Structure formats: structure tokens, C-alpha cells
């Protein structure tokens, strides 16, 4: 019994079939609780008023937007080393979710920025690096759709993802040189005293958990679809798609 047995798509399919209902129900429950708590049961901020509640969408989506890339990185590396087909498909399945989450984070951030900073957009390092992240995602996604042979597509996108990670990190720190920030620093941390108030952070944690579950549900769902698509493709003997 090893982790690698899930490189067999059939094993993955049987396992994910069992997991999927559980995880989707818990996603719905956690997200509903977190968002309801966040939107209706938290007090208004003394400075920001009701607009503070955008945090319950903005922070979790930004969290997923960044971490989706790491999921893609890990699964790309696994593909490069072990030729683990499910892994490559997970990376493929994760990319559009990452794009969506990045766009959600940018748009909620813009709405919040308009309320708080008086402007939708500022060329701030954090904002700009999110935009760059979106560009990296789009490049990755475009490469997947451009290469026709599935195996070379997996290989090429994995290489792009690994190299892209280095450049995404470099760009993240390069933009610090180029502009001063308007965005605040981290408001949640495990070890620091400074913290946002529990009235906000507790529902925020639930929302973050909900978004993580949502991500997992979507990835599993999309990976299953990809595997089924691959099977149909093989059954049709590469004729038509």
C-alpha cells in the first residue's frame, strides 16, 4: 500500500469516487457557515464599515490563487520524476482554478481598494505580482491547449511550471524594487502578536478552509473528467475529439 498506487488512474478513480460526495458536502457546509458568519454575524469595522467583509472572499481566493501554483509545481515535479499520469492531469486540472481564483482575488481587491484607498488599481508590488501570476497561469494554460500530443504537453508544461516558479518568485521580489507598496502586510500569522481581531479572524479561517475544500473538490472533479476524456480519446483511437 503506497501513495504511488494512485498513479494507476483506475485506483484514483475508485478512491476519488468515494471521496467526492463527502468532500463536496463538507465544502458546501464550510463555505456556507464561513460566509454566512462572515457576512452577517460579524461587527462592522470602525474604519472600514461593511466593506471589511470583502476580506472573506479576498483573502481565501488569494490564498488558493498562490497555492494552486504550488500544487501545480509539486505535481509537475512528480510527473517529471515518476511519469505519474494522474499527477500531470492534476496539474492540468488545477490551472483554470488558479486562473479563476486569481481573477476573483484581483477583482474583490479592486472593489475593496476603491472603497478604502479611493482607487481601483495602484501599481503596488502585491497587486502587480498578482497580475504577473495571472500571466504565468495564462501562459501555462495556453501551452497545455496548444500542444496536441498529451505526453509531450505534460512534459512541456511541467518544465514551464518548474522554470516559471523560479521566475514568479524572482518577479515577486523584483517588483519591490520598482514600486512602494500601498497594500498592507500580512494580517494573519502563526507566530506574531499583531493580528486582526478574533471576531474577523475566526470566520476568516472557516472561509479559508472552505476555499481549500472547494479547491480540492474542483481538482478531483476536473481530474476525473480529464481521465474520462483521455479514456474516450483512446477508445476513439485518436480519431476526432
Amino acid at each position, binding site marked *: 500500500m503506497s501513495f504511488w498506487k494512485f498513479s494507476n488512474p483506475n485506483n484514483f478513480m475508485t478512491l476519488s469516487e468515494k471521496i467526492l460526495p463527502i468532500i463536496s458536502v463538507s465544502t458546501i457546509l464550510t463555505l456556507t457557515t464561513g460566509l454566512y458568519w462572515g457576512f452577517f454575524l460579524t461587527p462592522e469595522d470602525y474604519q472600514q464599515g461593511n466593506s471589511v467583509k470583502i476580506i472573506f472572499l479576498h483573502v481565501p481566493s488569494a490564498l488558493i490563487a498562490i497555492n494552486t501554483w504550488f500544487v501545480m509545481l509539486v505535481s509537475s515535479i512528480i510527473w517529471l520524476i515518476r511519469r505519474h499520469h494522474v499527477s500531470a492531469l492534476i496539474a492540468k486540472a488545477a490551472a483554470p482554478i488558479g486562473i479563476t481564483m486569481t481573477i476573483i482575488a484581483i477583482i474583490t481587491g479592486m472593489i475593496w481598494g476603491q472603497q478604502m484607498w479611493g482607487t481601483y488599481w495602484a501599481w503596488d508590488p502585491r497587486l502587480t505580482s498578482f497580475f*504577473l501570476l495571472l*500571466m*504565468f497561469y*495564462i*501562459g501555462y494554460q*495556453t*501551452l497545455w491547449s*496548444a*500542444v496536441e*500530443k498529451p*505526453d*509531450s504537453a505534460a*512534459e*512541456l508544461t511541467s*518544465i*514551464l511550471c*518548474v*522554470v*516559471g516558479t523560479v*521566475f*514568479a518568485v*524572482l*518577479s515577486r521580489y*523584483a*517588483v519591490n*524594487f*520598482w514600486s512602494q507598496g500601498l497594500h498592507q502586510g500580512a494580517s494573519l500569522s502563526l507566530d506574531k502578536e499583531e493580528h486582526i481581531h478574533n471576531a474577523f479572524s475566526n470566520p476568516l479561517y472557516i472561509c479559508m478552509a472552505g476555499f481549500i475544500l472547494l479547491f480540492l473538490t474542483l481538482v478531483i472533479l476536473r481530474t476525473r473528467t480529464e481521465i474520462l476524456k483521455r479514456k474516450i480519446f483512446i477508445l476513439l483511437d485518436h480519431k476526432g475529439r
Partner: protein
Amino acid sequence: MISILKRDILLSVRSGTGFSLSLSFFLLMIIFAPLAIGPDDLLLKKIAPGILWLSALLSCLLSIDHIFQSDFEDGSLEALIIAPIPLESTILIKTFAHWVTSGLLIALIAPLIGVLYNFDFNSLLWIFLSLLVGTPGLSMIGVFGASLTIGLKKGGLLLPVLIMPFYTPTLIFGSQTIMRAVDGLEVTSTFLLMAGITALVIALMPFAATKAVKASLK
């Protein structure tokens, strides 16, 4: 190795795709920017470092997709893969050939063009140096991008989408170097960071590009 270098340089000179095209594109960009923005000297001087770097970057992109395409089409890329020299060094040589026909020329011509924007001598020097050190990195990243898109029908359009984000650090540090030189600030920190990125890219990217070339031809 030298013969590959000679061959690539000759090919790009004679076919007229790399050599004259990227250089004239660069010149056009530099001359067209004031036409679009207006002849305001102060404003132009303020944005000229950005224009210089952006033009260098775009003209580098313009010529890069030819680097594997013709070799792929006539089959000589396969010969290069099975040749006794490792593919990594072949790719490095091809990058060097591309740089000689684009980046180096741009770096040489940029200070002359910089006179049009009324830069002082110190700024012109840093324009030359930053482009000289930064453009090999641009070429290398571009070759990596080209290696991912060998044999794709949409390669030409796909390449900029893939590669532009990768140019971010070089672009930022490169144009910051010139901007700081224009403002009379200390420039070595951004310059060295940019040089570091070029060095990193040249040291590691041939390996990634080799993997990609092999994967594309599988």
C-alpha cells in the same frame, strides 16, 4: 561548436530575419515612441529608459521563434540532437548566435540613439552596459520559450504569451539601472541583480531547454 555558431550567425544574416529585422524594429520603436507621446523633452527623458528596454525586449522576442523553427522543418534539429556535442552546449551556442545578431547590436546602437533623448555621458554608458549584460538573459529566456513551442502551429503567437512574464525581473532591473543613472543615483545594486539573473539563466536554462527540445521531438 564554432561551426554551429558560424552557421547560425550566417543563416540569420543571410535570411535577413534576425540581423536586420530586430535591429530595425528596435530603431523604429525608439523613433516612434516620441511620435506617439509628443516632443516633450522632459517627459521623454523620464520614460526613455523604459522605452529603450521595452523595445530591446520586443525586438528580441520578434526574432526568437525562428531559432528552432527552420532547423525543425529541414530536420537539422534532429541531427543536432544526435551530434557528438551535448545538446546543452548547442543550445547555448544558438543563444549566443541569437544574442550577437540582436542583443549585442542593440546594446551597441542604443547609446547612439540615446543621444536623441539628450542623455548625458554617464547615462549613455549605463544604457550600453545594462543592455549588454541584460540582453543575453533575454535571448536565453527566449530560446527556452522557443524550445517549448517547437513544431506548434500557433508557435509565433504563443511565444510572447509564454515568455513575457519571464522577462519581468530583467526588465525591471534593467530599466531601473538606467533610470537611476539618469537621476544620478547609485546603480550598481540593480545592475548586479540584473547581471545575476542573466548569469543564473545562462547557467541553468540550457538544461531546461534541452529537456523541452527532446520532449517536443519525441
